[in-house]
């Protein structure tokens, strides 16, 4: 039986499977279909300082083997989160990887501070910093587009959360992902989550206008898996060649089956999140875990031995 445990910058998890932020709400909803405490970690919906209504509808469009969303970071705000959602996650024994967001670096830091000061903080195994969200100070460009704005966020969050495993969640929509990864790691991130959605768009052909209320949206699902695999490959590869310091990568993007998860692992991911596939099959994260375990067993590999293995086997 494969050893599935994984060490994410000090957060040792019994297995590498996680939900993806925004694809599992904050736990109760999915708990009807699977035991969220059985996952390596439960990743919460990115939370900001105050409550947010999100965008108008339509907020989604189905696309070939994927979907677009423009939710607009709807959520209850950090206070309601730490009062209600986090204690619930703690009560069922889930390990929470809490995703935080902000419109400027200060908001990120403030959210981090209130999280740290919360009662149920012991359920938190790490924090995922969603820098793939718009920076109001910079024409609404997402932080993760630029090394300096990414670093600014990570620096302030790091100050608030000494000793807490910190993962920067990157956008694939950049010319040089390694540059952004480098900036995040230098500014205090312990690891990286890759990838967030790709920026995409669909047209409503009946009305000949943008389909989504938010005009553009985030593309996710199996359609983008090859991009996720490549992103993880590039960044893990940069660690192997010394261009980046070694750090754990949490892979996400288009995982629907254990085979998909193993692709991300072989490219360099130490843990894997399942997002959009959960909409198709609510038991996906648990099912993918079982399938991954079988695949590792068949190959006689432990999880740790499979991480980045494809790099060793490249001519």
């Amino acid at each position, binding site marked *: 039986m494969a050893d599935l445990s994984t060490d994410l910058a000090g957060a040792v998890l019994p297995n590498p499977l996680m939900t993806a932020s*925004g*694809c*599992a*709400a*904050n736990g*109760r*909803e*999915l*708990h*009807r*279909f699977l035991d969220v405490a059985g996952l390596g970690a439960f990743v919460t*919906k*990115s939370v900001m300082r*105050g*409550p*947010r*209504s*999100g*965008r*108008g*509808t*339509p*907020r*989604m469009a*189905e696309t070939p*083997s*994927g*979907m677009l*969303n423009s*939710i*607009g*970071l*709807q*959520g*209850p*705000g950090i206070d*309601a989160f730490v009062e*209600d*959602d986090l204690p619930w996650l703690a009560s069922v024994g889930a390990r929470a990887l809490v995703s935080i967001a902000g*419109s400027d670096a200060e908001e990120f830091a403030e959210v981090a501070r209130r999280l740290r000061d919360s009662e149920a903080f012991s359920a938190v195994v790490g924090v995922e910093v969603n820098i793939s*969200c*718009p920076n109001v100070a910079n024409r*609404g460009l997402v932080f993760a587009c630029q090394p300096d704005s990414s670093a600014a966020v990570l620096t302030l969050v790091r100050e608030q959360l000494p000793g807490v495993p910190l993962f920067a969640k990157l956008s694939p929509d950049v010319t040089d992902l390694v540059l952004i990864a480098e900036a995040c790691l230098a500014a205090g991130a312990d690891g990286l989550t890759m990838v*967030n*959605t790709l920026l995409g768009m669909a047209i409503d052909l009946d*009305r000949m206008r943008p389909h989504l*209320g*938010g005009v553009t*949206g*985030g593309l996710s*699902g*199996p359609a983008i898996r090859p991009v996720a695999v490549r992103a993880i490959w590039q960044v893990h590869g940069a660690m192997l060649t010394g261009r980046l310091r070694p750090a754990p990568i949490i892979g996400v993007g288009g995982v629907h089956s254990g085979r998909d998860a193993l692709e991300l692992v072989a490219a360099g991911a130490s843990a894997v999140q399942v997002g*959009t*596939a*959960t*909409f*198709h*099959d*609510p*038991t996906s994260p648990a099912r993918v875990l079982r399938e991954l375990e079988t695949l590792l067993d068949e190959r006689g590999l432990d999880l740790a031995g499979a991480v980045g293995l494809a790099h060793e086997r490249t001519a």
Partner: protein
Amino acid sequence: MSGEVPDTPVAQVAARLLSNEPVGAYRHLVLDAAAVAAPARPGQFVAVAVGGDDTAHLLRRCFSIHRVDPAAGTVELVVADAGAGTHWLVGLRPGAAVDVVGPLGTPFPLPDEPTGCVLVGGGYGSAPLGWLAEQLRAAGSHVELVLGAATADRLFGVEAGRRTADAVSVTTDDGSAGTKGWVSDVLPEVIGRSSATTLYACGPMAMLRSVTDVAAAHRAVAHVAVEEAMACGIGICMTCVMPVVQDDGQTKMVRSCLEGPVFRGDAVRWEAFADGRCAVPADAVGAPVAAGGGGH
């Protein structure tokens, strides 16, 4: 995302399709899905995976439950061939396996005491109304049905309704059956003559809004089952939201798959809906201060 997750049973089953027959412009599907049938109540829906193993269609499609037979373990749906996913579904042969999640969402609330009820259905929206009518009448209420559609073949449940309900009124846009016009044209008279206090409606947004208006004019309460585009159906994606006034008077963007699909008509902020879009009302909790707002 706080506190509102129901603790009622929900199941994911590999249901077997028992039959698939045409009914007017629609198909009537009967599924063997006991775990879904047992707890289901009128107004709830199911989310069905479409397209088979290798499909490019990732998202489930949602359908009102037409009725269930808990003893037989069957769940029935009425499906319009609207696009790729429904086209696949209505093309299945008996014996096929269908991945079904349900029952989902809130049911129509039943009155505490017998009363006058009018059930309004537009197109396939009338699918759950026969079942609802039976439950209401069994509890002693007076039940009238008002069924409308664009054309006669898009009416659903008229014949069965005549057997179940105390009366049935029919409208079609083109006059090919019943009164030419909309359900809202005949609704005032039906409410008046039956002294109804409670309306139940299921159908297009515009219809639900006018049913709500008519109800208000007659001091009746309208319970409406909405149909928003849903990516998950189970409350985890936040795509299906609409602005609904809460008990504390605040408007929130709530998930229609979890806190709906049945809402009190007078709680829905209808003015936010226009031309296939729904805007966030400026006074909604957490509404964007400036345009933009961003992030997924």
